[in-house]
C-alpha cells in the first residue's frame, strides 16, 4: 500500500502524512453521515459522529485567521465575479483617448489603445477566479471518482487507474500545459480544463488510500451485507469519511490554480488577449514596474490576497479536520 498513497505536491502532504503513518496516529473516520447511525445499533458511534462534526465546525469557527480569510475570500470572489459589470467602463471598450495616467474617472489610467485599466483589472480578476474555481471543481470531482473507484475495487481496476495516475504524474505538467495551450487556444474554459487535467492526481491517491482502509471497516461490511450497491457504499459510506481531505485539497487547488494560470500567462500561454486575467495583467505590468507601478502591484496584490486567504482557509480546515488538534488545544 505504501507505493501509491504518497503526496506529490507539497500542498497535500499533511493529508498524506496521515496516510503514511501507522494506524495509531492515523486518521479516524470522521463526519460519518447520521443516516448511517440508524442502520446500526451502535449508539456510541452516532454520538461520537455528531460530536465529531460539531467539533470540526467549532474548531474551524475558532480559527480566527481562517475565518477572516474566509470573509476576505468570499468578498473577493463575489467582487471579482460581479465587479466588472458594475464598473462604468467595459474592458473591451476603446475610448477616444489613450495612454493616459490615472485620474478620478479612470483610477488606473487608460492603456495604449484606449481601454480603461480598472475595467481590465476587474475583468482579469473575474477570469482568474473563474479558472481557479472551475479547476478546483473539476479536479476534485475527477480525483475523488478515480480514487474511490481504485480504492474500492482494488485489483486490476486499481492497477490500471493508478498507472494512469502515474502517467499523468510522470508527464511534466508544464510541458503539457504549454503544448495544449498552444493547440486549444487561450479561452478561459479550455485553460481551466487543461490545468484541471493535471491537478486531480494527488487527490485521487489520497481518496484511494482512505477508501482502501475504510472499506474493511465493520460498518461497510454491514452495509454490504444489507445489500447496498457499490455506488451507494462509495457515496454514502466511504466518501463522507474522506470529506476532510477532499475539502482541504479542493481549497488548496484554488490557490495553486490561480498561480498556475499566472505562470502560464507569464509564458504567454494563458488566457489570450483581448481577454485578460490577473496573470496576464501582472506579466504585462512587469514592464511597467517603474513607470506605472500600479499596473504591477495591484494585480499582483489581488493574486496574493486571493491565494493567501485560500491557503489560510485551507489551513484552518486542515486543523479543524485534524484529530490531533484535540490534543494540542487541551
Amino acid at each position, binding site marked *: 500500500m505504501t507505493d501509491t498513497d504518497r503526496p506529490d505536491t507539497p500542498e497535500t502532504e499533511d493529508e498524506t502524512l496521515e496516510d503514511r503513518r501507522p494506524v495509531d496516529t492515523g486518521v479516524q473516520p470522521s463526519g460519518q453521515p447520521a443516516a448511517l447511525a440508524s442502520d446500526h445499533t451502535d449508539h456510541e458511534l452516532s454520538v461520537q459522529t455528531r460530536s465529531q462534526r460539531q467539533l470540526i465546525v467549532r474548531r474551524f469557527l475558532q480559527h480566527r485567521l481562517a475565518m477572516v480569510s474566509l470573509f476576505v475570500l468570499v468578498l473577493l470572489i463575489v467582487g471579482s465575479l460581479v465587479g466588472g459589470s458594475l464598473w462604468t467602463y467595459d474592458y473591451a471598450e476603446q475610448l477616444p483617448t489613450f495612454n493616459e495616467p490615472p485620474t478620478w474617472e479612470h483610477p488606473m489610467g487608460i492603456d*495604449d*489603445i484606449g481601454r480603461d485599466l480598472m475595467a481590465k483589472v476587474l475583468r482579469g480578476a473575474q477570469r482568474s477566479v473563474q479558472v481557479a474555481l472551475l479547476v478546483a471543481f473539476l479536479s476534485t470531482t475527477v480525483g475523488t471518482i478515480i480514487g474511490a473507484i481504485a480504492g474500492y475495487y482494488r485489483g486490476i481496476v486499481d492497477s490500471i487507474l493508478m498507472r494512469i495516475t502515474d502517467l499523468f504524474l510522470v508527464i511534466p505538467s508544464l510541458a503539457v500545459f504549454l503544448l495544449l495551450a498552444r493547440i486549444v487556444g487561450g479561452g478561459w474554459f479550455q485553460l481551466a480544463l487543461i490545468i484541471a487535467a493535471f491537478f486531480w492526481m494527488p487527490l485521487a491517491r489520497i481518496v484511494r488510500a482512505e477508501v482502501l482502509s475504510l472499506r474493511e471497516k465493520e460498518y461497510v461490511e454491514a452495509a454490504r451485507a444489507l445489500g447496498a450497491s457499490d455506488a451507494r457504499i462509495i457515496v454514502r459510506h466511504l466518501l463522507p469519511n474522506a470529506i476532510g481531505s477532499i475539502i482541504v485539497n479542493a481549497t488548496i487547488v484554488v490557490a495553486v490554480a490561480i498561480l498556475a494560470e499566472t505562470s502560464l500567462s507569464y509564458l*504567454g500561454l494563458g488566457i489570450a488577449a483581448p481577454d485578460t486575467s490577473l496573470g496576464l495583467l501582472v506579466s*504585462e505590468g512587469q514592464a511597467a514596474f517603474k513607470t506605472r507601478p500600479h499596473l504591477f502591484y495591484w494585480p499582483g496584490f489581488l493574486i496574493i490576497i486571493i491565494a493567501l486567504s485560500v491557503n489560510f482557509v485551507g489551513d484552518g480546515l486542515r486543523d479543524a479536520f485534524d484529530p490531533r488538534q484535540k490534543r494540542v488545544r487541551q
Partner: protein
Amino acid sequence: MMKSRWLRVLALLLGLSMIAAACGDDDDTASEGEGEETEETTEGTEGEGEGEAAAGGTVVFANEQEPDGWNINTASSNLLALGQLTEIVFPAAFRTTPDFEVVMDENLLVSAEQTSEEPQTIEYVIQEDAVWSDGTPITADDFIFMYEMMNGSNGEIDVASTAGYDRVESVEGSEDGKTVTVTFAEPFSEWQSMFTNILPAHIIPELGDGDAVTGWNDGLDGANAPEFSGGPFMFEDYRPEQSVTMVPNPEWWGEAPNLDEIVIRFDVDNAGLPAALENGEIDMAYPQPQLDLVDQIDGLSDVDSQVSFGLSFEHIDFNLQNSHLAKPEVRMAIAHALDEEDVVARTVGQFSEEASVLQNRIWLSNQPQYEAHGDEYIGANVEEAQGLLEEAGYDCSSSPCTHPEDGELTLRITTTGGNQLRENTQLVIQNQLAEVGIGITIDNVEGGAAFERFFPESNAIADQDYDIALFAWVGTPFPSSNKALYTNEDPTLVGSNNTGYQNPAIVDIFDEALVETDPDAAADLYNQADTILWEDMPTVPLYQKPTFLAYRNTIQNVEDNASTAGPLWNAYEWSVEG
C-alpha cells in the same frame, strides 16, 4: 552523532551543487577551445566582469536571438540577428546606410561599375590590401566561389536566395585576382544586392574536409562560429546559449576599431532588459519596442536610446478564397473603413512622433524611391465603405452586413498571439470595422504557429486557414523578391503568396523591372506595381515597425541602421568614454 549525520547530508547536497556547477565549466571550456589561444591571453587582462565594461573598452550587447548557424547565405541560418553580426565580419561589395542608400563598400572595393549593357557586365576592383584574417588576399576566387555556391544549379547546396546569381553567365578574375568581371546571361537590375557576406574560398571547403558543398552547408553550423574574418571584427569564444565575443581583426586593413571587444549576450530576455541595463550587466540592447519597456529604459539616467523605422512593415492580407474577400468591393470597403492614422497613433505612434502610415508595399517611407499611393484610403470613410458593400449586394441595415448568398460579413483576423503590438493593432482594426458593419473575430495562434495557417505544410491554397492575416514582411532595398509575395506560377500553391492573388499585369511589371538596368526606371516600375496592388487590394500596408536601440551614454558614435544592417554596422567607430 545524529546531528553530524544531518550535517553530512547537507554537505553532500552542497557538494552536489558544486559538481553541478563544475559540470557547467567543462562544457564551457570545451566550447572555448574553438577560440584562438593567443587572443585569449590578450583579452584576459580586460577583466571578465561586465561591471568594468566601460573602463576596458568593452561593450556588452544583449541580442535575444541566438544564431542557429553562422553561414548567413544559407536558408537555415539566414536570420536578421545573425546578419547584423556578420555585417562587421564578412566583406560585402555594397552596404545599406542608415538612410537606406545602397553604397559601395570602399573598404573592400576600389570601384564597381557596369562596363557594358549588352551583355550586362560588372567590373569590381578589389582593394590591394584587402586580406582575410589569416593573411590570404581577398580575390576574385572568393567572388567565383560565392557564384558557384549560390547560383542554384546544385540542389544540394543550401542557399537563402539565388537572386542574381542564377542569371550570371560567368565570373572571372584578372590582375592577380584583384579585378572581378561578372557577365550576366540575362540583365539583372539589382546587381548591387550580390556579393554580400562573402566567404573565403580557401577556408570553406576545408571546413567540409575538402568538400566545398559540405563546408558551405554544415561547416559553420551550430557551435562552429567562423574563426576567420574579412571585416573589422572577428568572432571569438562562442559559448552556446550565452555569448559570442567580437574582437578586432588583427589583419583588418581599414580604420582600426577603438573597442577591445563587443560581447554579444544571448541570455537576456526583453523583460529583463531594464534591470540588466540598470545593474550594469549589459551596455546595449536592441529589443522590439513596447511602450512600457521604452519608458522604463528612457527613465534610466545613463542610458540613451534611438527609435527608428526599419524595413519591416506590418500589413493585413486578405484570403481571396473567402467568399466575402473574393469580392474586390469588400476589400476596398475594409481599406476605406480603416482609419490608418488612428491605428498608427494607438500603436507605433506612441514610440515616436515620426511614425506614419505606410502607403506603399514595395518601397518604405525612408527609402528615396518611396511614393505614397494610398491617400484616398487614409482616414475612416464609413459612407464610402458602406456604399461599396451595398454595391456588392450587402445589406448593411443591421450589423454585421449580410449578403444574400454569402451570409453575414464576419471575418476572422489571425496573427501571432503574444505579440502585443499586433494584438493591439487587431483590436483597433476590429473596433474601426465594427463602425461599418464588418464583424471581426480575433482568432490568434500562439507565436510563430500562426504562419502554418497562412503557409500550410502542404503548400496548397486549399489548406490555408485564415480570413485576414496580420504580420510583417521585411522590406529590402532590392525589391525584385517581392514578386513571389504577389504571384505564384501555380495558382493552387501558396509559396510566399499567401493571399492567392493573381494578376498577369503585376507579373509583367516585376519581370520588366528585374531586367531594367536603369535604377530610376526600375524604381518607377515597382511603384507602378504598387499602384496596381492598391487597385486590387489583396493586402493593406499599415505601418513600418520601429526599432529601438538603447545604449549606455558612455558609448560614442552609436547610430542605429534600421535597414537590415542593424546597430553594429559602424561598431568600428565606437569608443567608450572613461
